[in-house]
Each structure stands twice: as C-alpha cells, then as structure tokens.
C-alpha cells in the first residue's frame, strides 16, 4: 500500500526523537508527550503498520520458539513474568485512553494431538506455574465444555488464563489518535540513515534532511541494528517475515487464542468476527528488505492446519493475506538506557512484541523521564550486547 502523505514536516531540532513508529515507538512517544516532552516520531515506512501486528495476546511460552531455540528458553523465562503484566497493562491503557481495542483475555489454549504432546505441555505448564503464570492442563472432556469448536484430533490442551486477543487495527488507530492529541509530531516515509553525536546532541541524517535532538529513543525493530552500531552495540535482532491470513467475518465461535504444542499456528477470532490465522509461517522479504510479501506455501499450509484444529474454519473463506516482520532478539527484549551514551535509549520488546509493547514502552519512558521503572530492567539491558 502506498501512503504518500503520512510524512509531515520534518522537525529540525527537537527535544526527543523516537526512531520507529510501531507499537513501541508510538507508546514511548505518547507517554513522554503526556509528561510535557516535545517529541517527534520518525518512521521509515508507515507508522503503526509497516510491520503489521496481528493482535495475539501471548502469555505462555510459545512452543514455536521453544522448539526453534531451546537454548534460549532460560533467557526467555527470565522475562516471562512480564507477560501477564503486559496483558494487564493493555487493559490499563485502554481505560486510560477511553478507547476500544477489542481486548479480550478469555484464555489461550495450546492444543495437543498426542499423549507425547500433552506430556510436553504438562511439563511446560508446571514450569510456567512456578514462574507465576496461571496455566493448567485440560483433557478432551474438559475442552468440550469450553471449546467445542476444536476438531476431533485434539486430545487435550494447556489453558493459560491470561491470554487473549485484541483488534490491532482498533488499537493502532486509537494510539495514533492519542499521540497526535498529546502533540507528538509524526513523520513517515523517512529513513534514518545514520546517528551520530554532535556536541551534547544527537544528529540524525535522514532521507529528508538532518534532525537534531537532545534525547534519542531507538524503537526501530530490526532497523535498530544499524542505528545502535555507533554506540558500540551489536544487537542480535533479526528480521523475521511472517505470514498472516484472515477470513470473512462470522458469528463469534472461537473464544480463545488457539495454538498448537508441536505446530506453528495461532488462531483467534477478532471482536469483528474475522478469524485471524497466523503463528509463524514464513513470508518473504522484498529484495530491498523493507517490506514482506506473502508466500503461497504458507497460505496453503497455515490455513489447512487451521481447519484441522478448528474444522468450521473450512467453511469460511480467506479474504486477505499479509506479511509482517517480527523482531526476535534471542531472548528477552532490549529495553533501557545505552550505557556510555547519555540520553540514548533502546526499546525493542523481543518475542511477542505486540503483547509486550505498551508495558515495555512505559518502562523505557520512565527511564527516559529519570524515574525508577516498576520493573527491574537489568535482564533487559542493552549493555549485554556491548
């Protein structure tokens, strides 16, 4: 989609510049502007949408990630306590903005198709409970009580009570309105090519000219890698293009965020009745690597798996597919001040970035404002990549 006019005037000199207008950048900018800071967002693409969020509220550890990166599980567990708080914070933000994000935390089910998978889930649930999560195992009879829409192949599931979904479209729209209302300048289609120190300020060379700022927040997802280099950081961030599908709307019949113990999938039904099917199937990066394109094999494989787990989906039609870019960090997020570079901050949420977005942004905004954040940010410190 082309968006020729999201680019407002580029500020020349500003108190705080946030690079990246995704969920992190929007929220950091909004929180800072609410405290009277003069803030501008610069986004290379279209704010709140270049990398497209799908709206899952993840709390339990995603089996996809555990399978792909078993070595990173301990690191991931160190940040797990943030997930239920992050979901709680979404509700708080919705109240704060007096908006409707289509939030629903009616629980997430990770389904198993075999004894072996169910045993894996049982161990996972036990670990998660010890870390403070509300997780339990349900057998098929119990599932029939709460999730009659599941197919006959499902033998049981892990239920994580705090999971759910939101309508990313509604949330992003409300957030965009909010940041505009509190006076954030939003400039799209402007790439930041280089960041350097210029006296006591930061100098940003952009595709549309130079911007100077006293405070710099890097919230550019995979683009943060090059932006953080001048500060001596080598971030393990990656571009992971992911594929998504959405069906036509129907009556609400899928009450949970549905995942699978051994396969890549998320299924959820938005408040609008559309069923969103995703969960980590690959998309392709364009040659310029600035946008992602859908992949035929993912459309087939992903939707076919969805109708296997939730058979009624077979009756629905896919009306749209899209691709977004996930930013894995090899563990928990990268949040907080860059040591040795006063007034420079990083804000990358890590796995399940949309779920963690607003809370992560609040924590970073607090450090920018010189306050003590409500969570210990030591496990998330950028310094670990120096």
């Amino acid at each position: 989609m082309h968006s020729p006019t999201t680019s407002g005037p580029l500020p020349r000199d500003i108190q705080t510049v946030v690079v990246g207008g995704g969920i992190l950048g929007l929220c950091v900018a909004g929180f800072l502007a609410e405290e009277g800071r003069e803030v501008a967002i610069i986004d290379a693409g279209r704010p709140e949408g270049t990398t497209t969020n799908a709206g899952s509220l993840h709390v339990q550890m995603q089996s996809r990630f555990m399978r792909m990166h078993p070595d990173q599980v301990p690191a991931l567990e160190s940040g797990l306590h943030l997930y239920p708080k992050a979901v709680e914070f979404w509700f708080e933000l919705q109240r704060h903005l007096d908006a409707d994000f289509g939030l629903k935390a009616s629980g997430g089910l990770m389904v198993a198709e075999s004894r072996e998978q169910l045993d894996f889930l049982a161990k996972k649930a036990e670990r998660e409970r010890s870390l403070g999560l509300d997780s339990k195992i349900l057998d098929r009879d119990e599932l029939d009580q709460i999730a009659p829409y599941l197919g006959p192949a499902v033998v049981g599931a892990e239920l994580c009570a705090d999971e759910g979904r939101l309508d990313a479209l509604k949330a992003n729209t409300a957030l965009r309105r909010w940041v505009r209302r509190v006076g954030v300048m939003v400039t799209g289609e402007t790439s930041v090519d280089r960041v350097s120190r210029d006296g006591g300020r930061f100098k940003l060379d952009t595709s549309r000219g130079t911007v100077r700022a006293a405070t710099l927040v890097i919230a550019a997802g995979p683009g943060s890698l090059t932006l953080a280099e001048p500060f001596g950081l080598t971030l393990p961030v990656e571009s992971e293009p992911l594929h998504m599908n959405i069906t036509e709307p129907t009556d609400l019949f899928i009450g949970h965020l549905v995942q699978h113990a051994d396969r890549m999938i998320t299924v959820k039904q938005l408040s609008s009745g559309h069923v969103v099917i995703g969960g980590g199937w690959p998309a392709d990066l364009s040659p310029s690597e600035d946008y992602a394109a859908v992949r035929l094999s993912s459309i087939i494989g992903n939707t076919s798996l969805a109708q296997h787990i939730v058979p009624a989906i077979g009756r629905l039609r896919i009306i749209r597919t899209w691709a977004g870019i996930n930013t894995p960090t090899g563990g928990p997020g990268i949040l907080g001040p860059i040591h040795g570079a006063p007034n420079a901050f990083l804000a990358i949420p890590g796995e399940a970035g949309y779920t963690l977005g607003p809370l992560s942004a609040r924590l970073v905004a607090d450090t920018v404002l010189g306050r003590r954040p409500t969570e210990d940010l030591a496990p998330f410190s950028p310094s670990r990549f120096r």
Partner: protein
Amino acid sequence: MKIEFEGEALEACPGESLAATLTAHGIRSFRTTERGAERGVFCGMGVCQDCLVEVDGKPNQRACTVKVDRPMKVRREGSGRAPAASGPAAGRPPITIEEIPVERPQVLVVGAGPGGLAAAYAARLAGAEVLVLDEGSAPGGQYFKQCSAAGVAPPDAQHQEGRRLIDDVLGSGVTVRSNASVWGAFRPLEFAATKPGGSFLVQPEQAIIATGAFDRGWPVPGWTLPGVMTTGAAQTLWRTARRLPGKRVLIAGNGPLNLQLAVELVAGGADVVAVVEAAPAMGVRRVREIAAMLANAPRLVADGVRYLSTCRRAGVRLINGSVLTSVVPHSGGLRATIAGRETASFDVDVVCLGYGFHPSNELLRALGCEHAFDPEQRRLVTVRDTRGKTSVDGVWALGDCTTLGGARVGQAEGTLAGFAAARALGCALSAEAVRLEAQAAADAARHRRFQRALWRMYRMDESLRVRPTGDTVMCRCEEVTYGQVEAALAEGATSPSEIKQETRLGMGRCQARYCGPALETFLAEQTGRSQDETSGFAPRVPVKPVSVGDLSNPAGA
C-alpha cells in the same frame, strides 16, 4: 425443478443462477448486513460479494454464481451465523503445498471471454498446448455468455457468435476448465486456483491474462439497496436465464450498453421507464465521431441506430445530460431521482447502473506488471506492446483487463497475444496463421479507432458527477460512509492506508474493487493531490475470497 428459500418452495429453471430464480420470484433482498442493511444482486458477476446466501448449510455462497442444478435449501445470510463444524469436509488432515497438484501447460489463459478464447484458439493453432481457466460456469465471459437455463428462448445473434467461437476453441484441442477461480498469482510465474474438487497450481511457460472488467460503482444515496444493480447484472439475468430484473426498470449510466439492455428488457416485456445517459445528446456536432465510427464498424453503428429506434417505439424515454442522484425505498419498490439537464423522479422496481467499467488487473499487478495511470479515465493501464507483451517475462495481457476497449478489441488482441505467446515458445506460424494475425492487427486498430470515436461521443460532463452526502456508502462491504472518511481526514488521516486503518474501508470481501477508486477520486478532490500509478490500494491475494476447505483439499485429476 423446485428449490427452497427460507422454507418456501420456489419453481426454478434448471441451469439458471440462484440469483435468477430468486429475482424471478420478486425476491430482491438476499441478506442482512452487520448493520442491518438489506442487500441483493449488485454486480451479478461474482465480484461484489453482496448477494451472499447459505446453500445447503454452506455459508457465504454468491447467489449470482451458484447454478440451480439440484433441489437446494437456501437461506438468507444473516449478519454471519457461525459455520457448522460438521459435514464431510470437517477437520481434514493438514496438507502442505507439495500435496497440491501442479499443472504445467505451455500456455495458460486466464479468462474465457472473447479475448481469452481468441488467444487460446490462436496459440493452439500455432501448435501450443493450451489450458484456459475461467471462473464462470461456462465459457463466454460477459460478452459471449451463453444461456444456461434449460429450455428457454432460442439463442440470439450475440449468443450464436459466441457459441461459434467457443466451439472453435473446444474443437481445436484447447482444454477449457470452467468453475476454476484463479485466486492468486505469484512471481515468477505461478498461479493458484480452485475448482469444485479442490485446489491446484499452474506453472505455465507463458501466461495470457484476459480477466476482463467489472462495472464501476456509482456511489449515491441508496446505491446499495436491493433492486439497484449494475447494467451488467441485469443483462446477465436476461442473457443467461431470460429473467427480467423487475417489471418497471430505470436504466442510468454512460455508454451504449445501457441502450442494448433497454432493448433486451423491452423485448422481454419489461416497462423500461427511461434510459438516463450522462453524455449530452448526440447532435450534428458529433458528425466527425459518427463518420469515424461508420468507417470502422458500420455494423455496430447500425446496432446503435436500431437500439435507439426500438426504444423510441417502445416509449422508453431517452434522457441525456443527466445522472442518477439518489434511490430511496418507496412503497415496496424504489424511487430514483435524476438531475442534470433534467430533474425527475421515477417509481420503479429496479434501477440499473451502467457508468462504465474498471479493469480486473489484480493478477497482472500481483505479478508485478508495470502499469501507468490514465488521468482522464482515472484508472490504471497495463503497459504492454502491440502484441500484448507486458513488462514481466512470459506474461501477456489483453482486452478490458488492461484498458477498456470492448469485446471486439479484446478478441483481436487475443488473437495477437495468442500467436505471440506461441512464437515465444518457438512455435512456427503457418501461412494461414500469419494471415489471421495480420487480420487481427487490422481489426484491433479499426476497433480501437471506433472505440475512441464512441467514447468521444459519450464523454460525460464532469460537472455532473454527484457530490455524495455524508451518509452515502463508499465501501459496500464494511459499510463505510463518505462521512466516516471525512471524519478520518479530520482526525489527521491523509493516505488511503490510514483511512483504511481508521475506518476498515477496503478491508471487506470485494477487496476494495468499488471503494478503492471512489476513495481515490474523493481524496483527489479533498486534498487536491493528483493520482498516479502508485495511488490507492495494492492488490492482495487472494484476489477473490477462497474457501479454506477448498485450499486444504488437493484437486483430483
């Protein structure tokens, strides 16, 4: 044959569309939207997704494309009942793309209208192996659509001309597969499709895209009401099933197809109260255009003269220089109001809208074929050479999906593209083929000259464009009004993508086919920004909604 609609038994004619059956029984509202609005047949060709009904428990079936071939139980589509989990398709084992059968014809033609059929015939004549995929239940496309209902009136001249072309193609050894919806195109050259048996892929050496066009919307208050349909939809009811869209009909639009429809409906016994044409009356000032048309296609001019005299004889009022401005429900029917040179209201059953066409270029754009923007027609034009070669290797395009030229131009361009694609495969052309190719080049040029003169004559006064009110629907699927778009602009949204996010405009089943162009025009007016080839919404797959059940089921041989 009898079908059941909401428990009521209805007599149907085997082979006709479900939309034709329901219309014949005076049923115009097929479903209720999320916001409680009524909808029925609009495009009549499977594009708008407004005529959705539930057939034998299967939700969201397009009544205009479902053929009545068995007794069926039909229900109105509510605001979306949850789909039933049972049925033979329930919970198939998951598949991967490797299980989907792949066909590798030398030439794939998408679309079996006049252009696609001509292309297939030419490519086959030159020796290529050709597969044609078409979404319709029978070849012919819109212009050569055949009568599908059993035992109705004998075919007319246009049916017969189409029949000859179809028979030529079938007799030449081309494989034509109907009911095959190509829902996606992927680089470098792969097509994803479904047929009733399931999913299949096509990886041709050469692809010829002949997907035609669809009727443009005319967003005025009431344009979504049941009984308001495109001229193409009304013509399809008549030409495929000899069903009238209603008894009293108003036709409003721009172009000669509206006159042809009036003549056909009059012959069927309808009371066509008026044909409201946006272009000014054709007087002596038009002598140059008329001369050019006569020189290039005298038969088509003769058809036009015949249409006019038939209308006059039947008492159909011909009103020029005026447009439809609103439709409201009125005592069981509709009250349509026009303005311009003449202001009037008509009480009718049906209003037909024929305000031109929009190219179905989704597959071409998905493949990355270069397009240019035509500011006068406010639409994209596929960049290609005189033989239909696009900017993407192995992709040829012709006819109305590239730029509007009508069936004759499409047919001639089809012949050229078919031969050119065969040449690209290394086929040698016989002397006869070379002669046909030269003939097609001359025909294409001649019919383009005719079209240019025709559209100069039919050029409408731009000041007649209706300024929609705030409560006029812009996006039919998501029920987004002009007022909501204005509010989004006031909130600071500026680009189509921001308006999409704010309002959900363009995110529905039809893939922004109607609201996309309407939004572009509106934004150009509101912001003074000019449109170009990068304006508007990028095409997304699937280009038509595709059922997950079909996707998950490898098609049998």
